[in-house]
Each structure stands twice: as C-alpha cells, then as structure tokens.
C-alpha cells in the first residue's frame, strides 16, 4: 500500500475550530441537548449569489474543505470523497413538508436540488472546477470511515492527492423524532457525559475535511495507516477484530500509545467503551472528544481532526483525557467508535 499522509485539515463544529488562535484546551464542554455549529462568515468563502441557496451542511463543507486545501497547498485534488449519514437534511425536510402542505403540488426546485446526499461533494467540486473522481458514501456512523477507505484505495492506485470529508447537519423535525426515540438527551439529563446513566447523546452538526497525499510535506499532521469498519460486533468480537486489524498492519495493541474513544454519554453505547477501558484498553492512554463535538453520523471526522492535531503537537490537552495515564510522547493512535454496539470503526494513525 502507498503511504497516506494527512497534509491539510479543516473543521467547522460546535467549537471555535476555524479560529486558529483558539486551542483545543480552550474548547468548552457542550451543555445543550442540541448544539448547532458555530456560525462562520460564509461570505469569505462562498460567492453571494451561490450562498443563498446553500443549506448549513453545504456551507460548512465548503469552509472545511477550503481550509484543508489551503493548508495543504492543493487547488485541484485527484478525488473528492465525502461521507454523510443524512445528507442535506434541512432541504429534504423542506421538500417533504412542501409535498404534504401543498398536496403534492407547487414543488419548488431549490430544496429538491439541494436535498441529495451528494450536494456537498458536488458543490465543493463546482467551487474548485474539479472534474475528478467524486463520490459520496452514506453508511450511517461509518460514512466518513467508508470515504477514508476509498481514499486509501485511490491513493494506492493513481491518485496523488485526495480530499475527504464528513458532513452532517441538524434538522428540526429529524431531531424531534430522535428525541422521541430517546436518541437525544433531554435538557434535564445533561451532565458529565462520562457519568451519564441515561440514554441519548448531545446532538450536534459539523464538517471536517482532510487532504490526504502520498507524500509527506511540511504541513503533515500524521500518517493515516489504515481504517476498518464492522457493522455488528459483541465485545469478544471487538477484541478479535481489533487484534486482526492491528496484525494486518504489523502491529499489536502493545504498539498503540493512545486510544481515542467515541464516548458520547449514551448509556446504551458507552457501557461498551467503559467495559473496554477496564479490560482491553486498561493500560492505554484514553481520550474522548464528543463532550466537545456532540454526536452526529460523521463525528468521527471531528475525532480524526482532534487526533491529527494532538499527534502533530505531541500533546493531549487535559480536556480530552479520560484517564490519568500519560506517555512522554505518542507515536501510534487508534480511534475506536461504535454506535450502540453497531457501526464499529478502527482508524490507525502514526506520528511522522
């Protein structure tokens, strides 16, 4: 396999992630059940005549992708690969609502055009006038990881630079349905997500994009070694699949310095993490990040953004630490995520 380096990153989230003067250690723990992304000055990035039709997800995706490309010094990547769990949900809701309210008549084109899952990848490509390979993966909580796997394959073939990203947006009606299903915490259940004894997460939205290249450059954050996904696993199978994943990469768990976990305050999924933290990952430096990002289908891209920054700076801020174990530095990082026992993913990074 060709090497794959993360050479540019961009992030729009519920934190001040586009402001370079704000450090991870300045991020504040989310305190709302629904946490919109921080507003950006979108006019700095998007032409005014384009911006008026764009949903939040598209705008966030364009900002994050532009920042990543700018940092890597890339104008036209060989591929644009996007992951999204729900696509441009706000426009989907708008269009469906119009169908119901107007008795299937008077349907306007804009929300229909903008509601498709691949709108973000398409708008990023249009903005760049990039006609290369452009694919959007929709695979629930593994959407971003699937995009990353495709990027690794593309780099192993003819591509030299690939832009990958994840994006998901909050939409009013869908969030309401998620609240009814106890997928989202109610306001009175919000507390320290590490000690949460209730179901549900803190809902949020965001977009993170990365420029991946075969070559290491002065802007390189880390090497993206490998990514693996699995749909449903029990705890024994998690250990087996993880060992097998590491073995494939000529490593064992002993080689991993830090584990970034997708703990999100939802008891239904967090029990798995807590159990692993007391067994398989007991002697590892454990890190969590969803108290800063909230939860959305492609939030693991935020996890990768955080991990890339930590590796580059060789520091894990206190706000991310799940246990007290500290290492002098860390070379190898594993990101592990799952959603209520489904959609497991392993992402392996190495410092450069």
């Amino acid at each position, binding site marked *: 396999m060709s090497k794959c380096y993360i050479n540019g990153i961009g992030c729009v989230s519920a934190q001040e992630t586009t402001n370079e003067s704000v450090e991870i250690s300045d991020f504040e723990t989310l305190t709302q059940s629904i946490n919109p992304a921080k507003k950006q000055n979108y006019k700095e990035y998007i032409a005014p005549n384009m911006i*008026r*039709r764009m949903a939040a997800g598209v705008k966030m995706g364009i900002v994050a992708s532009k920042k990543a490309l700018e940092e890597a010094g890339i104008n036209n990547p060989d591929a644009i690969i996007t992951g999204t769990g729900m696509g441009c949900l706000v426009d989907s809701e708008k269009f469906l609502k119009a169908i119901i309210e107007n008795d299937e008549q008077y349907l306007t*084109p*804009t929300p229909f055009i903008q509601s498709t899952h691949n709108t973000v990848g398409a708008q990023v490509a249009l903005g760049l006038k990039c006609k290369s390979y452009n694919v959007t993966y929709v695979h629930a909580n593994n959407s971003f990881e699937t995009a990353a796997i495709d990027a690794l394959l593309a780099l192993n073939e003819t591509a030299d630079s690939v832009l990958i990203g994840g994006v998901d947006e909050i939409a009013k009606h869908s969030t309401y349905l998620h609240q009814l299903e106890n997928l989202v915490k109610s306001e009175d259940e919000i507390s320290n997500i590490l000690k949460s004894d209730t179901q549900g997460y803190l809902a949020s939205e965001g977009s993170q994009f990365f420029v991946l290249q075969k070559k290491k450059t002065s802007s390189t954050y880390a090497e993206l070694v490998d990514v693996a996904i699995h749909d449903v696993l029990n705890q024994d199978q998690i250990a087996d699949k993880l060992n097998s994943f590491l073995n494939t990469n000529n490593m064992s768990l002993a080689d991993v310095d830090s584990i970034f976990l997708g703990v999100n305050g939802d008891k239904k999924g967090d029990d798995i993490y807590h159990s692993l933290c007391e067994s398989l990952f007991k002697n590892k430096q454990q890190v969590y990040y969803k108290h800063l990002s909230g939860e959305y289908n492609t939030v693991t891209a935020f996890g990768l953004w955080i991990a890339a920054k930590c590796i580059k700076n060789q520091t894990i801020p206190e706000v991310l630490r799940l246990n007290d174990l500290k290492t002098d530095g860390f070379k190898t990082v594993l990101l592990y995520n799952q959603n209520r026992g489904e959609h497991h993913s392993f992402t392996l990074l190495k410092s450069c």
Partner: protein
Amino acid sequence: MEKLKAELKERIIENLNLEDIEVSDINDNDPLFGEGLGLDSIDALELIVMLDKDYGIKIADPKEGKAIFESINTMATYISENKPA
C-alpha cells in the same frame, strides 16, 4: 397596485432567500434577471411556482416568462390582469 408590488418584493426576497436585500433595495423597474437582482433560471422556476401557488396563475407558455418576470412592474401588471376573480 403599490400594495401588490410591495408584497411581490417581500415574497421574492423570502422565497429566493435573497440575503442582505431589503424591499427598499428593489426598484419597480429594476431588471430581476441579469444585471439587476441577478436572478437565474432556477429562480425563474421558483417564480413560476410562486405565481401559481400565491396568485392562482399558471403560465402555460414558458416563453411568456421572460416578459412577465422582467421587473416588479411587469409582474404586478401581469398578476392584476390575469388573477382569477
């Protein structure tokens, strides 16, 4: 007629998400497409739906659209002459 023109401006701004544009920024004779408000072909479809939904007017021949949607004045005139009783 003046009331209709003001109403049209409000609806155009709202339906087409014309951010940063106020009713007072649109003159009655300003071209809606091209150099004026800068509307495009997708906006034209939105305006056709708006005429049907809000004023009960169906534009049977799309070629008519160019003249109808030239400005707020032409739209208001067309609506007042063709609105079902």
